[in-house]
């Protein structure tokens, strides 16, 4: 188990040594209204060159509007967008060194693959020879050689996605924006394309910002994730930090599955908090990186941190603070790699536990109706104030 305290430092706003280097992109207090609807509400964010950044949030959270302001399709009502130190908030889209890969690819249906990729290069007044070289390079990068003459409607969904990627990369933008680029692909293809996207980004050393509502996708591809809700940027963190140390109940629930217990902090011994909950009795949790100031808190535990056994772990010296909850298994879902259990605690609350199936033969599995002890350590808990 990784304690929350070990997670925080390398990813937040402060990074010693690198702090002097200005970010590639600085978003400063940007806001956008559509009529009386505040789509983006005072977002500030720094993105370093070479990062793969994900904007994650439910639909309508403002992530796409923020991306469109970076591309120049929307003008912010407030704030500044600095690219390499220059404010581009009011620069027209065709004059920005930024390119975008559109959600439905927006390939030009009247142009073949070659001309789609060459479109931006011709606008950049490159010579014919240079264009030919660059197009060939891009076709090789996305593995589409031989399809130069095809029209978009003669391509499969996956091929179209690659053409869109090649077209948006061809001008070698300082910043590539990807608007739900994989939403139209089926699950298998989406997963392999995520890996390819990461490879392309690493090989070209470009800065990518991807917008997605799929938290697994964001965690797979991105170095850092910004979670948006109702126009605000709620947390910016690495995938691991976001999952293991979310800073709010909302994010804990949005990113992955979680068990939540509301309770009151009754005592504090060194870094261990004792929290009295109604649903699960008295629990012990490690204090998070930033000290808790409220007494009414939420204690959150990821399902895979909750272990089930018939009798609970053997009490020993270090495990003295282990949280044990008695209950009955009500539901078992076998998912291949893991099995998810629903356990009804004695208080009547149902919690979820997810355990890896590390052996082929399930000697230790628990069937419905089985009485079990659900247990987790103080380090497995996240204490949330909001």
């Amino acid at each position, binding site marked *: 188990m990784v304690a929350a305290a070990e997670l925080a430092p390398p990813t937040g706003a402060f990074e010693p040594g690198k702090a002097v280097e200005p970010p590639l992109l600085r978003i400063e207090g940007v806001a956008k209204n559509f009529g009386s609807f505040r789509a983006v509400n005072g977002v500030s964010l720094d993105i370093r060159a070479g990062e793969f950044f994900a904007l994650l949030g439910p639909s309508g959270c403002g992530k796409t509007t923020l991306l469109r302001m970076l591309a*120049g399709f929307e003008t912010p009502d407030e704030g500044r967008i600095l690219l390499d130190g220059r404010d581009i908030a009011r620069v027209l889209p*065709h004059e920005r060194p930024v390119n975008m890969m*559109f959600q439905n690819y*927006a*390939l030009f249906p009247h142009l073949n693959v070659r001309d789609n990729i060459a479109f931006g290069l011709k606008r*950049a007044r490159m010579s014919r020879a240079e264009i030919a070289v660059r197009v060939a390079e891009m076709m090789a990068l996305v593995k589409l050689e031989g399809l130069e003459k095809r*029209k978009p409607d003669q391509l499969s969904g996956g091929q179209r996605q690659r053409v869109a990627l090649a077209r948006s990369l061809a001008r070698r933008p300082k910043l590539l924006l990807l608007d739900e680029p994989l939403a139209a692909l089926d699950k298998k293809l989406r997963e392999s394309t995520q890996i390819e996207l990461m490879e392309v980004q690493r090989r070209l050393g470009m800065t990518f910002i991807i917008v997605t509502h799929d938290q697994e996708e964001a965690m797979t591809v991105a170095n850092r994730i910004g979670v948006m809700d109702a126009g605000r940027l709620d947390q910016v963190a690495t995938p691991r930090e976001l999952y293991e140390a979310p800073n709010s109940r909302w994010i804990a629930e949005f990113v992955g599955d979680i068990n939540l217990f509301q309770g009151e902090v009754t005592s504090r011994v060194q870094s261990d908090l004792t929290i009295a909950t109604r649903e699960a009795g008295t629990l012990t949790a490690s204090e998070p990186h930033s000290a808790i100031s409220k007494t009414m808190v939420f204690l959150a535990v990821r399902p895979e941190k909750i272990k089930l056994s018939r009798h609970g772990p053997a009490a020993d010296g270090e495990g003295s603070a282990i949280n044990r909850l008695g209950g009955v298994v009500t539901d078992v879902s076998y998912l291949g790699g893991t099995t998810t259990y629903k356990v009804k605690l004695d208080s009547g609350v149902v919690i979820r536990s997810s355990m890896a199936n590390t052996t082929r033969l399930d000697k230790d599995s628990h069937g419905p109706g089985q009485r079990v002890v659900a247990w987790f350590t103080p380090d497995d808990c996240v204490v949330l104030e909001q």
Partner: protein
Amino acid sequence: MSARNIFTRPARLAAIAPYLWMVLFFLVPFGFVLKISLSQTVIAQPPYAPVFDFSAGWTALKAAFGALSLDNFRLLVSDDLYVLSYARSLVVALASTAMLLLIGYPIAYGMARLPRRWQPVAMMLVIVPFWTSFLIRIYAWINILQHDGLLNRVLLALHVVSQPVVWLSTDSAMYLGIVYSYLPFMILPLYATLAKMEPALEEAGADLGASPFEVFWLVTFPLSLPGVGAGVLLCFIPIVGEFVIPDLLAGSDSLMIGQTLWLEFFTNKDWPVASAVAVVLLAVLLLPLLVYDRLQRRQLEEAR
């Protein structure tokens, strides 16, 4: 017995319906016209020599075939009245179609860019003139354009002109009438293509460094070509055969082919020549359509 059979038979019947319509209301009447065009004029009722008399038997039929003449078509080529009429019709149709495209495109583009809830209103405004009879609208124009009409009174009041201008019976009046009458037929197909175009395509153009003009010329316009084609055909073909507007608004010194046809038919009572005029007109209109179709097919094959 499968469910398939139940559905295929009516489906096949439905597919026949348009062909049946074409045969009944186009091919058969055209056959009559073609037949008359090969006949000679006589003073009788109907005013042309019968071509086939099926009751007269096989030999008579053979004789009738031998008597068929292309004289009427020869006349069309030899008398420059017809050639000039065809030429004028084509010139007027080309010029007015070009004007219609230049005026209709910006209107259709503007409509397609209106907020969604205003688009039906704009569409209504385009269609609303159809609520009034076409003839009444043309007579209204005569009223506006005449010597002491609204236009001259306004121009005089504004001191733009010192004397009333002659508008009626000029080509300007005719072009005005044609453009006014056909504008909805140009706007509606253009609007339909422009409105369903994905806005992201224009954004993609801008994103890839195209200026607003380049976005229009390289993305929007090429993608609206099906609408342009439909609008141009919907206007060009009926304008070539237009009779009412040139007759009421243009001068009488040169005629469009529709007017010539009307003259042959009603004034000269020469049905065979009138029919020949109609047959040639159809050929003239069909030719560009066939060429267009052939070109499109070739393009499709190249893409494959």
